[in-house]
């Protein structure tokens, strides 16, 4: 069976309608915006601080909201209904990720406006943000599949929000604790480093390494998610 845009769009529309009535989810979107408002009162923001807000948007919307959406489907036995329908894995996760993707980008754009962030190259930063969102939404999907309820998903994603939201701050500890040097390769740190380069006038040829690392994270997480979903399909 071929990919059906109509089926993916139907899942997207259903999620959009459902989310608009879900206060628990919609209120969680306010957290990165509140932090952006707080930061907007500071005189001058470094790229690290700007990307703390942006990475927090990725963690709270891309990971937390997506995991809650998937976990709720499991909790209410609606995911099994989708799995038993003619919808393919691409249509199911494509539809379910589209809402989160749009919400994530919307939150990032609003946050960037609030903190007056103006990248030197909007197109390069847009590419980096889109690739990053692929990783975060994939991570949220995996977290949702691994948990059984929205409450469980909320608890499990907390350390992830911390790791991917604040690890740019933890970079200062790498000199004291070399074991933490893996932090440099996390997608959020790569994104912040990329943004610094872009702000200094770098082009695509200077930043492809950062993009490649973020892309590898994205592909890796979706391969893991697909494997886990397939396993669940025949695990009863």
């Amino acid at each position, binding site marked *: 069976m071929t990919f059906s845009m109509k*089926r993916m769009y139907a899942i997207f529309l259903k999620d959009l309608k*459902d989310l608009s009535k*879900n206060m628990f989810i919609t209120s969680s979107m306010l957290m990165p915006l509140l932090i952006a408002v707080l930061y907007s009162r500071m005189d001058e923001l470094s790229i690290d601080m700007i990307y703390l807000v942006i990475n927090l948007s990725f963690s709270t919307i891309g990971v937390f909201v997506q995991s809650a959406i998937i976990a709720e489907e499991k909790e*209410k036995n609606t995911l*099994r*209904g989708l799995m038993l*329908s003619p919808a393919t894995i691409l249509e199911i996760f494509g539809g379910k990720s589209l809402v989160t993707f749009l919400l994530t980008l919307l939150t990032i754009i609003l946050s960037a406006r609030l903190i007056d962030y103006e990248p030197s190259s909007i197109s390069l930063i847009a590419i980096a943000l889109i690739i990053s969102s692929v990783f975060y939404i994939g991570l949220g999907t995996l977290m949702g599949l691994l948990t059984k309820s929205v409450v469980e998903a909320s608890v499990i994603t907390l350390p992830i929000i911390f790791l991917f939201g604040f690890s740019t701050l933890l970079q200062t500890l790498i000199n004291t604790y070399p074991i933490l040097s893996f932090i440099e390769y996390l997608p959020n740190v790569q994104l912040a480093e990329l943004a610094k380069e872009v702000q200094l006038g770098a082009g695509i040829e200077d930043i492809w390494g950062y993009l490649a690392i973020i892309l590898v994270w994205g592909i890796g997480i979706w391969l893991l998610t697909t494997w886990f979903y397939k396993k669940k399909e025949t695990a009863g």
Partner: protein
Amino acid sequence: MEHIIQVKSLAKIYGNQAALEDVNFTVEKGKTFGFLGPSGAGKTTTIKILTGQLLQTSGEATVFGKPASSLNKPQYRREFGVITDNSGLYSRLSIEDNLNLYCQLYQVSTKRIGEVLEMVSLSEERKKQVAKLSKGMFQRVILARALLHKPALLFLDEPTSALDPANSALIHQGLRELNKEGTTIFLTTHDMNEAENICDRVAFLHQGRIQLLDQPKKLRRQFAEASVCIELKDGREINVPAGPEGAKDIYDYFASDQVVSIHSNEPTLGDIFVELTGRKLV
């Protein structure tokens, strides 16, 4: 007669625990097949294997002539429907929104929503939010959803286990109508009345093995005592041999105008199950 489902020597083992052992049966096209057994007998495991949600440990299971495991592929999922007692709906959305999603997934016209809601007597509730439905209405929406794409084969796993008799009767009516239209039904239940009402053939499953398989009527006859029970006007109930040797007694009771009622001593399916396994169907 064409067999929609064929199962040969099917076994499923979880760790050291056998959930199914040497299970054999066939389901004919257009018939309703009942899979009866208490909780934990292996009924749900069988449905999961037949719908491609679970792989068997050994044996063969074919559905529509294909290995059951292939039903896991999206292109085959249009051919069947599954209803379980814990099937879910999107509670914040209306009945119509829920069914509309599945119309898009199965690529059927949204006009079908009106038809299936009429079949389950929920036309008036179309705009109602799912969270506000009673358990009976909820289960009828699940049935309506499974009927949207007119499946050739419908699997029902304890569809009325939590319903009152009125709602169960509505579901049974819907299933009978569907069966008349040619849909093959595979039903698991521990409700003997449900099985007697709608099944053409039943299999008794106990501890992962089929103990008995036949038409309900034939099973009742097979296990019937060769006697009839006569209820007399003085309150007594007399068992009289059903053969020629009891004919004179029966005639005498009728001739003396003592008879209130007379009926054969046929057991229910539940009685037969208890006799076979020594345990009740709960």
